[in-house]
């Protein structure tokens, strides 16, 4: 089997699910004839037609709201936010309407809201965001953010089949940089399960999305330069969190560094730290540390963006401090 990119893996998952289930359909801005801003849905219009690949007005509220209504009636819409930054426009519809629908009114909202996310791409303040924390906070939504091509495919298939709304964050830095060989057959990765990206015994780095690759690079450097055995946990799912995997790595290495590209205050590192305190405080040999973006809107210039976002060097600094505690 040939390698395919992270982006192609997402397309393959959507294609397979559309072929498998006639209730799956796509909506978004410029997703049809143009194939999407990043070409994730390239070729879908020709293959599935205008009824199942719907170009919409620039209306994130309407896209998400209409997906909810279609979901109530038994469809499984997969909708694109052209850049995930624009999901903010649909925040009300997602948090007030979609997230509460099953609980308050027994209304199913099986739908996927997906879009290119994240920085390291010189995209500036509105094409680089990581807005996951705002949605993880909302009961009723599921959130996934894959780091590998295999997970991108398997989680997309799981998200489309899920009976609730799944926010599917795609890291645009990984779209064409990361490749993988897809497992044969019906490759579905369960939502809510973390992955051990690298085994280790001296400390654990818990992370997700693009910073998984930064953490792996740091782990290799720490092994070479410091002789440290670093475990890297890729969360994959942010809601629900895999508490079992998180606590298992704490009990194994007793030192935890949380890394995320999202801003610091109110980021998921705080939540992970609280859970570790509540359930595994006695297993810690050092305080939980975190490496995150600075609390700054993401700037455009490479020198600025590189300063604001977490880098491999930062992870190494924090890891060394942690083992020296």
């Amino acid at each position, binding site marked *: 089997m040939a390698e395919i990119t992270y982006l192609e893996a997402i397309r393959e998952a959507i294609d397979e699910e559309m072929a498998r289930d006639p209730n799956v359909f796509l909506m978004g801005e410029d997703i049809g004839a143009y194939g999407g801003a990043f070409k994730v849905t390239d070729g879908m219009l020709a293959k599935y037609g205008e009824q199942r690949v719907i170009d919409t007005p620039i209306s994130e*509220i*309407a896209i998400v709201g209409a997906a*909810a209504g279609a*979901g109530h009636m038994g469809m499984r819409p997969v909708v694109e936010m052209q850049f995930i930054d624009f999901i903010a426009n649909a925040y009300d519809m997602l948090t007030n*309407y979609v997230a509460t629908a099953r609980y308050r*009114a027994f*209304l199913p909202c099986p739908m996927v809201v997906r879009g290119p996310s994240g920085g390291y791409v010189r995209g500036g303040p509105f094409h680089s965001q990581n807005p996951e924390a705002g949605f993880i906070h909302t009961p009723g939504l599921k959130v996934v953010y894959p780091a590998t091509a295999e997970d991108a495919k398997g989680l997309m298939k799981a998200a489309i089949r899920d009976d609730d709304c799944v926010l599917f964050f795609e890291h645009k830095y990984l779209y064409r940089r990361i490749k993988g060989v897809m497992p044969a057959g019906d490759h579905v990765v369960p939502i809510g399960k973390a992955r051990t990206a690298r085994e280790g015994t001296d400390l654990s780095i818990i992370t997700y999305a693009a910073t998984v690759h930064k953490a792996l690079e740091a782990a290799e450097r720490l092994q070479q330069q410091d002789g440290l055995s670093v475990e890297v946990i890729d969360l994959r799912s942010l809601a629900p969190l895999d508490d079992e995997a998180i606590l298992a790595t704490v009990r194994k290495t007793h030192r935890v560094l949380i890394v995320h590209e999202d801003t610091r205050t109110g980021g998921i590192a705080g939540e992970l730290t609280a859970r570790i305190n509540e359930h595994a405080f006695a297993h810690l040999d050092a305080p939980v540390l975190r490496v995150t973006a600075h609390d700054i809107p993401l700037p455009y210039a490479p020198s600025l963006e590189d300063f604001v976002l977490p880098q491999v060097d930062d992870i190494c600094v924090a890891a060394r401090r942690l083992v020296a505690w």
Partner: protein
Amino acid sequence: MAARRRRGPETAGGHLGEALPLEKKLELYYWMRMTRTLEERLVALYRQTKVVGGLFRSLGQEADAVGSCFALESRDVMSPLIRNMGAMLVKGATPLEILKQYMAKGDSPTRGRELNIHFGDIGPAGSTRGFLGQISPLGDMVPVMAGVTMTFKMRGEDRVGLVYVGDGATSTGAFHEGINFAAVQRLPLVVIIENNGYAYSTPTAKQTAAKQFVDKAIGYGVYGEQCDGNDVLAVYDCTKRAVDRARAGEGVSLLELMTYRRKGHAEHDNQSYVPDGEIERWAAENDPIDRFVRVLRDREGVSAETLAEIDARIVAEIDAATDEAERSGVPDPLDALVGVYADPPAERPLWFREGADVSSLGKERPEGWGTWDASKGGTR
């Protein structure tokens, strides 16, 4: 595409309304009177503190809710606003369900999770009654109903959607995005703007610089019509025309129903912002039930006795529903943890609540809980 204007208290029904057989006209009377009497009963229960939260009245607006929804078929889907209890009754919601909702009972349609008339029953034609409960952020139901009607179009189903918004909701982004999207997609959707003069305390003049809301139809490229919302036959006539257009594949219509909100936003609102005499004038000169009674009496020859019999039947039905609703229990606190997601089916109680009995957590509720079986709740 041009907006048609029909207004004035003397507008007499329109031919579709006039053409309804007497039996149907008496049904319209029944639903309007039921709406008003049920709300009066809810006021009594509110004063006895049996209604848990706020109470929303549609006094003076019964014709626009009832007359419009009466134009739908049972397979069609309607999404109401807070003053459309009458439309929900027409679509099959029962007084018992509404009473249980307001009293936050455990066997209410939402098991005590949601307030007042925020409940629904949608899905396949035939097995569901076809109303979709609103949420409090205004305008949100327009995009959602665009999605519902999009499935009708995708599946080639002969079904139409109707969504109500108030004058205030027209100012929201959701309203704009929803109607624009539905128009572009040529969906079988009727959007009704109930212009009752106020959004909470804000008069329409502070809501829009447009002379009238129906003018917005031109901007969206959809059919528009304005009508006297207190003339139940005119409301039926205007809505039926829009529903027929939707069913014929002619796309979205925007209807503006002119009415007046005689009570406050909710029962607590003292209406201090309303000019002196305005409410009294509408009550005396333009009450939708009084007007329709005159039509029935003077043009249809319906006797006072016939109407009194209907009124008495309604009171008896509401009495029976009230007794039954009052007998229902409150929700089991642990039911709060059930059903945020399909999977997992229930959340665990937090550790400081771990003493609670969780043996029934995630198990099925007693039959009828959280369902909307008209045969069980029906008092019609």
